[in-house]
């Protein structure tokens, strides 16, 4: 990279003014020999060579040199000179590991990292500092700041409550934002998986290998009489550990299970608990990481989906009923069903009933694929339609296609209002093998699951820390203000309202424990747990610094436009020139 470049080399033509100036001065200031009768009367006229008046001899050439300098400076300005020089420090992007494991240890890795960052900012001055929280998804922490105090205030939001830290995604985000100029610093508790050779990159780890036992998995399944629980406890250490797993319901200890775990061993424990125990808390004694020692499991039964099938073909109806029964938590009920499946084109259900209209055709073609599936659609989850023969006509079918073959829609969807959906499914039963394929029950199970997910209530009652809970609200949650809210009471007792839009609200889950979701008079319990083996496993945590910045890397090498310097210097020289010329005239 050259240290000096110019953008307008044609401006060198301006140097033509130099010989012109020289010629002017030569013609004007050459010594013209003049014969005189006597020098008698010129005695009082100072001779230029005489001492004491040397400045008079000099100031004329000085004016010449000043004018020459002005020409050169103006040419330099016109050239658009850019010089490569250290401009200022480069921007710094600090990627903060926001996972729970940063809280392990005393002092914790987070505290050590914060102190190290503070010292770094004290020693070096960066053009800007921007903080990027590395959780499951990267999240910028405020805007770029320059003041260390602003950084301090931003660091208060670095709470290390995320279940995992996607550092690779955070690095990609940082590089995209910072480009080649930005310096990257990762503050975490584990060494890098692959040493990054980039000069502008540093990886600082402040973790330490520690013994930790964790509940890494917890499931509660509800039945009408009793609930079953499955818990997995892991020993993340190099030694055999003994501990006790306790189950509590309210203030009652339901069960305590002594455990002895070999190094790296995981044990799965099965329990049966009363169905009326709305919240069961399982816990281990306190160790290096507190958050993975407790889980909460709430009692929850899936709501039943009412389905009514009105299909004249017995074989097809039978296949439908078998598939729907296999989906589970479904009942066949003709009064106010949630889903009506019919081959009657004139059938119009009530407002909340989803209509699945079977368009049974007599003549058509048998298609073997390939079938195009809208993979984002809930009905297509897990579908492949491989080796399926689908008989259909080629004419159009109303609605948005979900499954097509070539340009022929086979399954379409039309939405009526917020709650009522109208699905059309065309087929020629005699030419179609789909009801005999594994994709048949999958499709109908997807339909049941989809319909159930549209019931009021939380999308799940067991969430992971950091998730955003989708909450479906019912039809009668409007408040007097015209807006609908869902209230959430967090485990620390704080309550917050979330606006309902499109009959759903989203509640960020930032605390471990049981959340109460209140919609009108209804209350749902949602347990938030931290179950992540990678975060609980502190054996690979270590301290160290990888990568190094040199001063020249901290300083940004940048081409700086020198035009203003040249213009400013030319102006200064012109002012000096004017002052000297004025002084010469005054002294004369």
């Amino acid at each position, binding site marked *: 990279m050259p240290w000096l470049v110019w953008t307008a080399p044609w401006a060198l033509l301006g140097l033509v003014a130099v010989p012109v100036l020289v010629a002017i001065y030569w013609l004007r*200031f050459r010594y*013209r020999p003049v014969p*005189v009768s006597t020098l*008698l009367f010129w005695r*009082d006229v100072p001779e230029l060579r005489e001492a004491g008046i040397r400045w008079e001899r000099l100031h004329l050439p000085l004016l010449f040199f000043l004018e020459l300098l002005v020409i050169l400076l103006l040419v330099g300005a016109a050239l658009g000179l850019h010089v490569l020089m250290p401009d200022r420090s480069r921007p710094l992007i600090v990627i903060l590991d926001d996972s729970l494991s940063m809280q392990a240890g005393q002092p914790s890795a987070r505290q050590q990292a914060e102190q190290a960052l503070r010292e770094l900012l004290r020693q070096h001055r960066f053009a800007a500092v921007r903080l990027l929280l590395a959780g499951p998804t990267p999240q910028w922490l405020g805007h770029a700041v320059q003041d260390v105090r602003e950084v301090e205030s931003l660091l208060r939001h670095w709470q290390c409550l995320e279940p995992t830290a996607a550092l690779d995604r955070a690095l990609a985000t940082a590089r995209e934002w910072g480009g080649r100029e930005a310096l990257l610093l990762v503050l975490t508790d584990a060494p890098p998986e692959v040493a990054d050779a980039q000069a502008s990159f540093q990886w600082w780890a402040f973790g330490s290998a520690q013994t930790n036992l964790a509940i890494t998995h917890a499931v509660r399944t509800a039945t009408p009489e009793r609930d079953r629980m499955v818990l997995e406890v892991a020993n993340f250490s190099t030694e055999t550990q003994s501990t006790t797993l306790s189950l509590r319901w309210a203030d009652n200890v339901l069960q305590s299970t002594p455990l002895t775990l070999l190094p790296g061993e995981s044990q799965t424990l099965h329990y049966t608990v009363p169905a009326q125990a709305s919240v069961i808390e399982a816990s281990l004694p306190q160790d290096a990481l507190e958050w993975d020692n407790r889980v909460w499991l709430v009692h929850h039964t899936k709501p039943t989906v009412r389905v009514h099938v009105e299909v004249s073909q017995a074989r097809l109806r039978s296949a439908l009923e078998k598939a729907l029964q296999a989906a589970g938590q479904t009942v066949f009920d003709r009064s106010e069903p949630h889903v009506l499946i019919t081959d009657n084109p004139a059938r119009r259900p009530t407002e909340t009933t989803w209509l699945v209209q079977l368009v049974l055709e007599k003549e058509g073609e048998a298609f073997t694929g390939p079938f195009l599936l809208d993979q984002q659609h809930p009905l297509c989850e897990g579908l492949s339609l491989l080796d399926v023969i689908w008989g259909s006509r080629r004419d159009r079918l109303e609605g948005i296609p979900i499954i097509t073959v070539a340009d022929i829609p086979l399954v379409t969807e039309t939405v009526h209002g917020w709650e009522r959906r109208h699905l059309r499914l065309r087929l020629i039963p005699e030419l179609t093998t789909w009801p005999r394929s594994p994709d048949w029950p999958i499709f109908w199970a997807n339909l049941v699951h989809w319909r159930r997910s549209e019931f009021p209530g939380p999308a799940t009652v067991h969430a992971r820390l950091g998730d955003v809970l989708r909450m479906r609200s019912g039809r009668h949650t409007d408040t007097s203000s015209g807006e609908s809210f869902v209230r959430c009471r967090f485990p620390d007792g704080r309550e917050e309202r979330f606006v309902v839009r499109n009959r759903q609200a989203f509640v960020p889950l930032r605390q471990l424990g049981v959340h109460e979701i209140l919609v009108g008079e209804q209350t749902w319990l949602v347990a938030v747990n931290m179950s992540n083996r990678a975060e609980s496993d502190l054996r690979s945590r270590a301290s160290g610094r990888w990568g190094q910045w040199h001063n020249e890397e901290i300083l940004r090498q940048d081409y700086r436009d020198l035009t203003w310097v040249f213009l400013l210097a030319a102006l200064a020289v012109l002012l000096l020139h004017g002052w000297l010329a004025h002084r010469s005239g005054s002294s004369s």
Partner: protein
Amino acid sequence: MRVAWSAIVQRGEQEGCRYRWRLLRRSPAGQSDRYLTSAPGSSLEFREHRDYQPGDDLRYLDWNASARSDRLLVKVFEQEVHPQLELVLDASRSMDLAGSEKGPAALGLASLLAAAALASGFACRAWILRETCQPLGSLSASPSEWVFEGFTGRVSGAQVLLHEAPPWRPRSVRVLLSDLFWPEDPVAVLAQLSWQAAWVVIVQVVARADVAPSLRGQVRLVDVETGRVREVLVNEAMLRRYRDAWTQHQEQWQRACRQVGASFVQVVAEEFIRDWTPWPLLHSEVLQPSYD
């Protein structure tokens, strides 16, 4: 003599025949070789009273008349003049300044004055002033007989006059044609010149470039007489200094002339050459047109 110089001398001689020396008149005694000048002199013939001027000989103060008039008055006597003109021409290099008419004017004036003197009935002898003061021709020789070899002198004429004054005839009229660009004290020069002289006329021949130089910028001044060089920046301020020095020099000579009773006439060469009319000499009543 160079052809050019001879032509000038001839022209001067022709022009000189049109003029007479005005200052000369026959003495009342009627002696043929006695003339009186209009200037005050030292003869016994009283002429008039006039106001005392600095430089006047205190011996000529008329105390009685001064007491009566309450003014200092000096007695002016007629000057007795021997009818011979000693014409001294400064032939230094400065008298022939390149680019000016100084040389031709000086030589022409000398010829003119000599011819006028001869026409006035005077004997005339011309002297050339170079490193020495040498006669230019024989006594009463006409200017056309002069052997003039140009303005080549390299020394100050004042020094020559002070150290080696020629044998001028006592009570003669002495005319010095020079630019007077001499550093010496004019009083001493004039004292030497006016010693036993009936009258002294100083004709300063200068070029217009001497009176008002039109120089600007950086110039290398070359003294044509000495060859010395002086590099100066000429601007209005420097020209003002030149004019001050010039005026001071002129005043010195005029004062010295008054002191010794000499007449001082300045002739600008270019103005004289234009029509060959010696207006300054006519105005100062040194010459008068011939009415013959």
